[in-house]
């Protein structure tokens, strides 16, 4: 058997929820450094797919191979440990903690300890640096504010920072831009581009197609749990099946 160099390989994943086919025989692969977009109307199974990849839901059948290792159905923390970080659509930070304290927890994990050579730098400083990377103004009070007092856009960026704290090799963003204002999206997009440019492999589930198509290398479209298209962004825009899938459901901007 020749060794498969594909970064991420998803084969024939299936998931049924009590009679409802959420994901039907989805397969795709991902190369290192790619930025893959996942689109589809509401209910097409995008978040379920993310859950399947990250261990929050176990597939009924199929495999997920990551860097040559089979991670199908493993526990979420194990998957995070091998370097896959994901955001949650419904942002739920630790509300009573300040923004930077929110990051302490992933910084406490054994993965981060290992990556930093076993010795621990000051977690608080690392947290503040991370927040700066995602656009929190460093010399202001914002990183120290309690999470419950931060506006939604900041919370989404906090989610991003939480993922980055893990020093992931694969970043999965589940509708990061939803609920963000135009200017917030405009300031966050370059951050993602930069991360990808530095070599971080990214999967982005998005509804905001305009922004996604600008930075994605390749896009997959889902409808009713099945993959209906797979190709570069400009192909997606011409694809009849994709257009038909979105007709009838409102595009959210």
């Amino acid at each position, binding site marked *: 058997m020749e060794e498969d160099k594909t970064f991420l390989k998803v084969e024939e994943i299936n998931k049924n929820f*009590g009679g409802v086919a959420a994901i039907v025989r989805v397969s795709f692969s991902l190369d290192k450094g790619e930025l893959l977009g996942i689109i589809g109307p509401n209910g097409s199974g995008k978040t379920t797919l993310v859950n399947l990849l990250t261990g*929050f*839901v176990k597939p009924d059948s199929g495999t997920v191979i990551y860097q040559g290792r089979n991670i199908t159905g493993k526990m*979420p923390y194990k998957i995070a440990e091998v370097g896959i970080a994901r955001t949650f659509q419904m942002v739920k930070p630790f509300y009573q903690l300040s923004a930077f304290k929110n990051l302490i927890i992933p910084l406490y994990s054994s993965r981060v300890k290992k990556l930093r050579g076993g010795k621990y730098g000051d977690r608080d400083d690392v947290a503040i640096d991370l927040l700066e990377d995602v656009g929190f103004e460093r010399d202001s009070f914002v990183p120290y504010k309690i999470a419950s007092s931060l506006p939604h856009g900041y919370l989404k960026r906090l989610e991003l920072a939480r993922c980055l704290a893990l020093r992931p090799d694969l970043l999965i963003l589940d509708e990061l831009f939803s609920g963000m204002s135009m200017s917030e999206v405009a300031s966050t997009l370059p951050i993602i581009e930069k991360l990808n440019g530095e070599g971080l492999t990214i999967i982005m589930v998005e509804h905001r197609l305009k922004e996604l198509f600008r930075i994605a290398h390749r896009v997959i479209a889902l409808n009713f749990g099945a993959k209906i298209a797979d190709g570069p962004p400009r192909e997606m825009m011409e694809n009849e099946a994709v257009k038909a899938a979105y007709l009838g459901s409102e595009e959210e901007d």
Partner: protein
Amino acid sequence: MLPSIIIYGLVNSVILALIAMGFSLTFGISGVANFAYGGFYIFSGFLVWMLLNYLKFPFILAIIVTIGVVGLLGFVTYWVILLRVRGIPLSEVIATFALGVGILELFRWMGFVTYEFTLPYLKKGMIMIVGVPLDYQRLFIIGIGLALVLFLYFFTHYTRIGLAFRGIAQNERTAISLGIKSDRTAALSLAFGSAMASVAAIVILPLGIISINIGYEVLLVAVAVGIVGGLESVPGILVASLILGYAQIITGTYYKPEWMMVVYLAAIVLVLAIKPSGLFGKFKELEERV
């Protein structure tokens, strides 16, 4: 031997099912914690006893009054205690548990602990089935138990109130937006569950004396059956009761009778390790595991 095991196993299973049903209706099906269940069970027994012995009520009247009173007690418990802590499941558990303990220990303090506290059989006498003697009371238990299981199933799947019970457990907001009065439904569910507890008590307690510790055991049984079968599933209750009931009788007959209790512990631990949502439980799985 075998027919005896089959029949008494069935009786035991139905007893377990009867005990578990009221609890599952409130907690498993409607999502309202009722850990005063054991307290209500014993309270029903003592209430019937007091009505019979102090007020000299006729049996039928005592039964009807008790079921009504306990149902009402459940209803009131919701409004007085649970209303304020609704939605904080742990506070619900603690508050109702405290209520149950309070009721039980109150009776213990009042001295309701001697052998005179028994309930009469519904009808004396017995019949022979396949060479096995079976008294009418146990026959009644089987009959009423199975009838209640059927009733519960149809009630929660086909009647408006029953469906409302299930609705508020699954998604309270949706239920409210569909016009279901969440609080009143929950209170009704508590009332129904408590009433079922009293029905179970009235048929089962005559088999022995009304002992306060039974109150705690009842909770244990209800929980065990719920965990094994899946708290929100009526078929699950039945199957779990059959499994536990027969397991108990078999260990009691071939092993030692005292080991019957250990069956519960083993069953709970086993189920939790393998399939935490129970044999028939479905949607709880996601929430429980992760």
